[in-house]
């Protein structure tokens, strides 16, 4: 920037550093209000979960008359512990499966191109835009005929499939970034592709795998539609499906429902609190997903 416009500007520099028209205080205030709006439902949820029903109906926002921990106990009586376990199994299984499927595929796209491999990759990535509601009916019919409704494997496979396009896309981008010399050296040593994948690629894309795992886990943990349809028995529900139906059943006992919601939000909030940086990069990568 050798020719800054200042060269042809007539005015003295002193007045060119104009102060913010919208002062810093106002900006801070806007950010503060936005933060309150962002956090309010969470605060409301916790605030409601620790009081009893009468207290809530009397004044939803006021100070709780007594702290009432029973709601959490009742939420656990309503199977919520079981749902947490189910969600963990489904999320873990789906994340593991999609990782195992997408990493070798991405390696093949980058290192073993064949005729039409570009087209195939584009097709895979394109699948990202197809909403799950489209696949849901035939999948449900298929899983019914296979007798897999109410079994976790149906949901795990469905989640893995839905997470696959983004996962393979992201892994291709990362594996492409590995310098060629590393492969060449391994080839000279006589390593097979499987060996290279396992000993060179996987360690090098390790951080990316963590990010990918977080994006996928966040998505799977929070998914509702497929869980509601595929897991219909009370004891096989995931947390989100269980909560949605718990809310439908207990329209009056709002503190109980809020206790359930609080329990379900806590694991993710803790993760967010302690792993904010990883979460951020995960969100950023996940941006392409939705």
């Amino acid at each position: 920037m050798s020719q800054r416009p200042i060269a042809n500007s007539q005015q003295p520099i002193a007045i060119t550093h104009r102060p913010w028209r919208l002062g810093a205080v106002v900006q801070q205030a806007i950010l503060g209000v936005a933060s309150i709006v962002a956090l309010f439902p969470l605060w409301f949820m916790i605030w409601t979960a620790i009081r009893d029903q009468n207290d809530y109906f009397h004044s939803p926002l006021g100070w709780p008359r007594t702290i009432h921990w029973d709601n959490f106990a009742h939420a656990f009586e309503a199977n919520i512990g079981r749902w947490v376990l189910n969600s963990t199994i489904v999320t873990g299984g789906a994340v593991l499966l999609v990782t195992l499927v997408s990493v070798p595929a991405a390696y093949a796209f980058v290192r073993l191109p064949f005729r039409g491999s570009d087209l195939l990759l584009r097709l895979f990535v394109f699948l990202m835009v197809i909403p799950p509601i489209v696949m849901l009916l035939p999948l449900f019919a298929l899983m019914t005929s296979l007798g897999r409704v109410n079994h976790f494997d149906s949901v795990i496979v469905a989640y893995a499939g839905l997470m696959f396009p983004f996962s393979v896309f992201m892994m291709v981008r990362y594996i492409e970034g590995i310098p060629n010399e590393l492969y060449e050296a391994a080839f000279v040593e006589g390593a097979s592709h499987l060996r290279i994948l396992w000993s060179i690629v996987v360690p090098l894309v390790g951080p990316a795998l963590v990010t990918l795992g977080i994006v996928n886990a966040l998505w799977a943990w929070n998914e509702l539609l497929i869980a509601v349809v595929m897991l219909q028995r009370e004891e096989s529900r995931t947390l989100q499906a269980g909560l949605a139906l718990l809310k439908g059943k207990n329209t009056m006992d709002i503190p109980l429902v809020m206790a359930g919601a609080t329990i379900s939000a806590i694991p993710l909030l803790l993760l967010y609190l302690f792993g904010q940086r990883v979460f951020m990069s995960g969100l950023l990568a996940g941006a392409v997903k939705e």
Partner: protein
Amino acid sequence: MDTPIRVWPLILRQKDRCRVVARDQGSSLALGQAVPGTSDASRGLRSPRRGRGNGWYALAFLLPSLVLVGLIFIYPVYSLIRMSLYQSLGSLSLYVGLDNYLVALNDPLFLTSVRNNLVLMICVPIMIAIALALALLLFEQRKSAPIYRFFLFVPYIISITVSGIAFSAMLTKNGALNQLLEAVGLGFLRQDWLGDPKIALLSVGGVIIWREAVLGIVLFSARLLTLSTEPLEAAMVDGATRWRAHWNITLPQMRGIIGFYAITSVITVAVWTFSYVFVMTNGGPGNATMTADLYIYQNAFTVAQMNLAAAAATIVLVAAIAVVAIAGLLGRAGSRQAGKSATGSRRAGKSASRQVGSRTS
């Protein structure tokens, strides 16, 4: 990234050369910009090594994904279209051609749900405006940004189900929002937010904005950090106010990411609203908040009209693909234009600052 492509053809056989070049062009995928950590420079060179048996390796590595995609995408789409052309009567299946589509398109409820999705589109510009404003504020208030960022991203961490549950309790007639309005002297704004058919859809839209704007903040913040600050400073030195400088210099540079966010948001409000409406209103009151995906869900799983639902789902599929195709065409046209005025942004920034400068002098 040019050099390797020019060098390698000398070494490679003709057939492989085509492949390397082709792959290099192919790697600039349409959705590509937002993933961090990959450098373009390292991408030019790609496996020139094609020993015997690589085909088998490729097949073995791709087989699981082909099975998965076949099972979760290809078969269901095929089966869906088939289903939409038949009418099941007990165990009997009758071919009825496009009848299910005609029924869907003449079903007032389906039309209502599509109309509702279209109404929800007004969320998109609002989300963009809010996200842009907050991202710019975070960018300006650098010192305190981390703490605000931490708070502002929370809506995206909590699931739609959980926040939907919280909102549906807050938005009742005697709920927290109305009490809050009373408390700050805005009692005249009291509404039955989710119970009044006139405003229920807008309330749902508000919740969608509350959550989905976060994605915009994330994307825009990341893009802002990659921009060069020089043009901005130049404009400021020239006497532009900061907002003016942002408007004329920062904004044009963010066109690409705004476009990307706009597309994802359009898709979200068009075909991903199920979780919001299912948890908060289940389509009510009346059918005021019925959306296309909830319509499909209810037809398929509560009134057992599988074939009608399949037809509606096919329409949704076509709509989703159309949105992406149109966006892709617009994006291509846009980038061609941007390419033409590649040097334009700096020039625009300067002339804008000059304009402002001359006005203040």
